[in-house]
Each structure stands twice: as structure tokens, then as C-alpha cells.
């Protein structure tokens, strides 16, 4: 087991791309369960080190600890990756918590066409498209190691639990719709306005 652990670390060290479980199985000639266990150990051992293990759907990769972002960036003479726009961060949050997820599901949640944001995220490598196992024609989206690097986390497991994060956002005790209360806010003119607009806009 210690040998496998060491082998995996070496492979990850020389690779400049995420390694998949499948690749690790092939090159170490070991079974998935053992490799997963070794990877888990590697990830927890490295959590506070200068080089951490990223674990994303597209594979495993060693990367610098995001706590050292500034000095590494300066050494590489690189810029930090550009910030995200409102639209892309919304889409990213949905994918981050619901992956793998289809475009249709993303759009159902946002209530708006999300083609542009998805394309922008794909181009930046923050998400990737995989075939939908349940629908040969469709695709699903998931985050990548590039996403983890951008956000400075090592795995989506590090994100707060969704239910806890949104705990305070709940539907109020829904009272049955009450015509008196609802009608309070209306004056007679506004009713006419609504009818007028509805005819024009909905035809």
C-alpha cells in the first residue's frame, strides 16, 4: 500500500494534466479501491502542505496551495485568473452543487437561456462537457481541476453543504391566497393597465 501511495505521488508529480482514475489503474497496475484509498490519504496528508492534491471530476492533479497564491503568481510572473461575471458565477454555482447537470436543468433553475455563460466557462476550462449516460444526444456539465485552482480549493467537498448554506432561504408559511389582501394593493387604473399589457404582450 505504501508502495502504491508512493507510485501515485510520483505519477501525479510528473504529470502536467489531471490524471484520471483509469490512467492510474493502468500505470500502477492496481485496483480502483486501493488507488482511491491512497489518493484519499495523499489528499489529507497534503492539505496543509505547499503542494496539495486537487480532486475534480476530470481527474487528480498536484497544485500549489492556494494560500501561497501571491508568491507563486509573482514567481511565475503570471496574472491571477480573471474574476467571474454575475451570470457565469451563477451558472458555476449551479454546476458546482448539482453536477453533473444538463443545460436544460441549469436553465430551468435560472429561468433564462444560459448558452453564453456555459460557453464562456467552457472556454476558460472551468467546466467541461461530458456525454449524458442516460441520453446519447445530450451532454452534462461538471467542474474541472482548473475550477478548483481558480477558487483555491482542493475539492468540491470543501464547499459548504448546500442545505446549510441556503438554510435561511425558505418559503414562508404559505397562507392560501386571500383576495382581500391581494386586492388591497390595486387601484382601479392598475387593473386596466394589466389587461391592456397582457393582450399586447402575450399574443
Amino acid at each position: 500500500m505504501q508502495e502504491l501511495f508512493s507510485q501515485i505521488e510520483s505519477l501525479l508529480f510528473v504529470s502536467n494534466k489531471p490524471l484520471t482514475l483509469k490512467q492510474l489503474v493502468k500505470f500502477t497496475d492496481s485496483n480502483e479501491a486501493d488507488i482511491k484509498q491512497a489518493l484519499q490519504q495523499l489528499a489529507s496528508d497534503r492539505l496543509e502542505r505547499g503542494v496539495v492534491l486537487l480532486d475534480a471530476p476530470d481527474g487528480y492533479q498536484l497544485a500549489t496551495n492556494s494560500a501561497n497564491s501571491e508568491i507563486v503568481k509573482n514567481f511565475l510572473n503570471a496574472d491571477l485568473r480573471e474574476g467571474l461575471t454575475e451570470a457565469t458565477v451563477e451558472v458555476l454555482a449551479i454546476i458546482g452543487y448539482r453536477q453533473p447537470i444538463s443545460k436544460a436543468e441549469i436553465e430551468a433553475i435560472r429561468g433564462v437561456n444560459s448558452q453564453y455563460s456555459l460557453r464562456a466557462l467552457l472556454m476558460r476550462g472551468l467546466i467541461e462537457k461530458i456525454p449524458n449516460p442516460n441520453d446519447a444526444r445530450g451532454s452534462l456539465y461538471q467542474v474541472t481541476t482548473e475550477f478548483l485552482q481558480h477558487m483555491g480549493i482542493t475539492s468540491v467537498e470543501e464547499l459548504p453543504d448546500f442545505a446549510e448554506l441556503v438554510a435561511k432561504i425558505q418559503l414562508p408559511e404559505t397562507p392560501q391566497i386571500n383576495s382581500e389582501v391581494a386586492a388591497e394593493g390595486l387601484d382601479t387604473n392598475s387593473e386596466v393597465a394589466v389587461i391592456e399589457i397582457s393582450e399586447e404582450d402575450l399574443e
Partner: protein
Amino acid sequence: MTQIKIQQFEGPLDLLLSLIEQQQLDITQISLAHVTEQFLGYVKELEKIDATQIADYLGIAAKLLVIKSKAILPSLEVESLDEEPEEDLTEKLLRYKQFKEAAKYFKQLDARGLQSFTRTRVFSERINFWPDPAVTSGTLRTSIGAVLDSLKELDNLPKAKIKEAISIQEKIQTLQTKLSGQIETKMSDLIKNAKNKEEVIITFLALLELIKQRMFSVNQNELFTDITITQYTVSETEPQEAEPENNDII
């Protein structure tokens, strides 16, 4: 995309949510009925700015109108629409709001500017091509020859040229300017510089049209001799029509 007022919103749900929150309301059917007019007002504005987004907004607008109609007429039964639009919409809004909250968290992560880096690709480590030991200058020569041949084939693909088209309309105009500057013109001069048969035909058709419009007249002394084109004058070609006019004046 230009960002004007309405387009600060990430879609209809975002707009609806902010309308409700502006009034410090909870997400309920009542508050939805409350902000319906404002929502429709925005949609009307949006329609002028960017019609491509309108479909997403109209779907929500339709749901809002059902909710509002129900609020005004509690006895109203809407059958054709999908069941319980208000339930549907409040849930949709809630779910959207939750993900907006998650997005807020992501935005914070993003704003920390703490990023990690992986090993970058170094080209010198990556050169893993070397020629096969069997390669000689002869084989290289044959290979490059084969590549060049295949390029030649690509080059020999059938070609088609787009022919210059001359419209009768254009020809009429050029003829008109040309002819009106001269007392008489020979047909042979007009077609002397014609590039092809089509142009000769077009010139002739244009000339016929000008004759029909009574702008020029033509004269040919014998069959197959040159045609002379002159300005149209009333007295010369149609004296019988011109004369009564003169009589009237006298």
C-alpha cells in the same frame, strides 16, 4: 450586449426576485400579484431594447397574470395552463434564490484571489519525436514529393468563375448619358468594346427600350448595314401626331 437598466438582471427570475425584495416582501403568491405590473412594465421596456430575451420573460409574465387574475377573481378557474402556477413560481423563485446565495459564496471565493497553480507544460521536456532509423534522404524526398502531389490535387479542384453581370437597367442609364451627348451615334461604335455576346444583346435590348420610351430613334438604310441612332424628335418620326398640336396653337 449593451447593458441598460433592465439587463442588469440575470433573467426574469432575477428581476422578479429583486422586485419582491425591493418591497421587502416574502416570496408568496400575494407578493407576486403585487409586483406583476412592475414586471410587465420592465418587459415592455425590454421588448424595445432586446427582443431576443423576451421569450424567457413572457413565460413568467403569463404565470404572473394567472396569479394576479386569481387574486382579483378568486372564483376564476384556469384549466388550460399547467397546474398551480403560483406554487410552481414561488418554488422556482425560492430555488433560484438559493442558488443566488450559493453564487454569492462562489463570488467571495473568487474575490479572495487565492488560486493555485499546476506545473506548466515545458516544451523542452516534451520533444518526443525522432526520425525512424530507416529514414534516408531518398525516402524523405519521396515523402515530400507525395505531400506536394497531394497539394497539387487540392489545387486542381474544379474552379468556377462568377461572371460579371450587366443589368439592362444599368445599360439603359449608361446608353442614355452616352447618346444624349451626341447628335448621332453608330450602333457599331456602341458594341465595339463589348466584352462578349451577352453585352451586345443587352446593349441592343437597352436600345430597344430607349426607343420605346421615345428618347431616341434609329435608322437603317439597308438590311445588315449599320444602325444610326439619333435623338428623338417629334416632327421627324411622328408628324401626323405632332401637326394637330401645332394647329391647335395656331
